[in-house]
């Protein structure tokens, strides 16, 4: 038997469907195809609230045509962008502080862990009472979903910086700031980026939940309305949009990650 062909499965002569093309895309595409076929087959068995993929995609096209998707999506993405940005900026900053200063870590650790495990929607009524139906409420929910996972993983990233590198920096008379800027920060970057990537997925969840439970706007509003009509096809159509949003966001974070951590050997790269 011949040796098994390794990763570079390209399809000569066939245009690439996905613009993110790389050698490792083949298994992903295969998994998507299998998933789609299964969905279609199970859907055709006729379970009441499980329409086949083809019907869902047709409904999605129809909804887009009627302008039911694009405008709400823009609203949702605006909230997502603001909430995610706040989470990244403050989450990484607080995480770095916790990683570097043991006292900050000792002081904040219990709160961060408590809020990480608490169901984030518990805070929705509080936000609602402060901001009402405004987008601030949804942004706040997104931040609640996202920031703690970023904080905790960024702090962990700093803690994994090899002590030998810090000692080396100190032996060359580095100031605290130099040590942070030139040793700790670059060494913690790979895991910090992983933290942000996890946060990206959480932010999309927070966006939808916020829209469904507080202010009924954006994609959340579309889902809620469809749900009330027991219109599973529309619910799933919107779900596809949400998954695509999450996927694109995570891919964007990965692209930034790849630029920042190109020094990592391929085998130790996360994700």
């Amino acid at each position: 038997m011949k040796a098994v062909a390794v990763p570079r499965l390209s399809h000569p002569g066939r245009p690439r469907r996905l613009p993110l093309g790389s050698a490792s895309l083949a298994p992903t595409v295969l998994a998507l195809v299998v998933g789609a076929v299964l969905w279609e087959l199970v859907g055709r068995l006729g379970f009441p609230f499980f329409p086949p993929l083809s019907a869902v995609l047709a409904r999605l096209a129809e909804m887009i045509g009627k302008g039911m998707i694009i405008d709400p999506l823009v609203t949702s993405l605006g909230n997502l962008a603001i909430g995610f940005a706040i989470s990244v900026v403050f989450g990484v900053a607080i995480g770095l502080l916790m990683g570097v200063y043991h006292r900050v870590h000792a002081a904040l650790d219990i709160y961060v862990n408590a809020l990480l495990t608490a169901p984030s929607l518990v805070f929705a009524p509080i936000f609602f009472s402060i901001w009402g139906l405004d987008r601030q409420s949804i942004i706040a929910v997104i931040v609640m979903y996202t920031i703690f996972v970023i904080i905790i993983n960024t702090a962990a990233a700093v803690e994994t910086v090899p002590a030998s590198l810090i000692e080396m920096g100190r032996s060359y008379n580095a100031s605290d700031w130099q040590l942070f800027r030139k040793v700790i920060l670059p060494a913690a970057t790979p895991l910090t980026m992983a933290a942000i990537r996890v946060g990206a997925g959480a932010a999309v969840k927070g966006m939808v939940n916020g829209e469904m439970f507080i202010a009924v706007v954006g994609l959340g509003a579309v889902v809620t309305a469809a749900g009330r009509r027991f219109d599973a096809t529309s619910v799933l159509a919107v779900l596809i949009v949400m998954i695509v949003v999450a996927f694109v966001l995570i891919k964007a974070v990965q692209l930034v990650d790849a630029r920042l951590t190109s020094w990592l050997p391929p085998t130790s790269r996360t994700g």
Partner: protein
Amino acid sequence: MIEITGLCKAFAGRRGIGEVQAIQDLSLTVHDHEFLTILGPSGCGKTTLLRALAGLVDWDEGEISIDGKPVRGPGPERSMVFQNFALLPWATVLNNVAFGLELRGVGKKEREEKAAHLIQTVGLSGFEKRLPGELSGGMQQRVGLARALAVEPEVLLMDEPFGALDEQTRRLLQEELLRIWEANRITVIFITHSMEEAVLLGDRVVLMSARPGKIQEIVPVPLARPRSADVDRVSQSEEFVAITSHLWTRLRDMQHELQHRGVEAVAS
């Protein structure tokens, strides 16, 4: 001149009990332009001593001074070469070598010129743009050595720098280090657990014993310099063999004594 007087350093044992006396009442003078090697079994406090000299750890009692100035932390007149290389994995060879200069605020052009020169000295020309992960262990330690030399230290502290390398690489780097040192003759304090390495490189060998870490003997090495020209002849000479076998006898006795004491401690 480096003067160490009455140095004591203890570490708390696990769960705060069973204090370990890493260094006990150690006094030592290192002369300018001397290549001093420190030899001892593991746990004899030799690395702790070096870290104290580097200003990386505090000690309990005693004094360390360099040219009369007491050591209170790391200083620009000292630089260190680490056993595990401690290179920045994201920085190129050039930037790693220039790192100490960068921390000192030396301009980009100047530090890169200096680094390039040292890269040549340690025989890594052509690898300037490589990352440490792309280099062998021996090459990585050449980078570590170049980085330490780039800041033009008066004292070079080397913590078992070749301990993680295979025998061939180790010998090549010993020759290289001798060649570089015999050209610049800065003060070097070199930690090792290899008798041959200690004798081949050193002007004097400080023999330490473990638990507590103490100096047992200081053995002068009267082998002629430069030694780099003919390392093989030096290491097969009668004198060389005599000194290493003397060191071995002492080390073996120390080990026996330790085991003996261990048995007594268990028995009592």
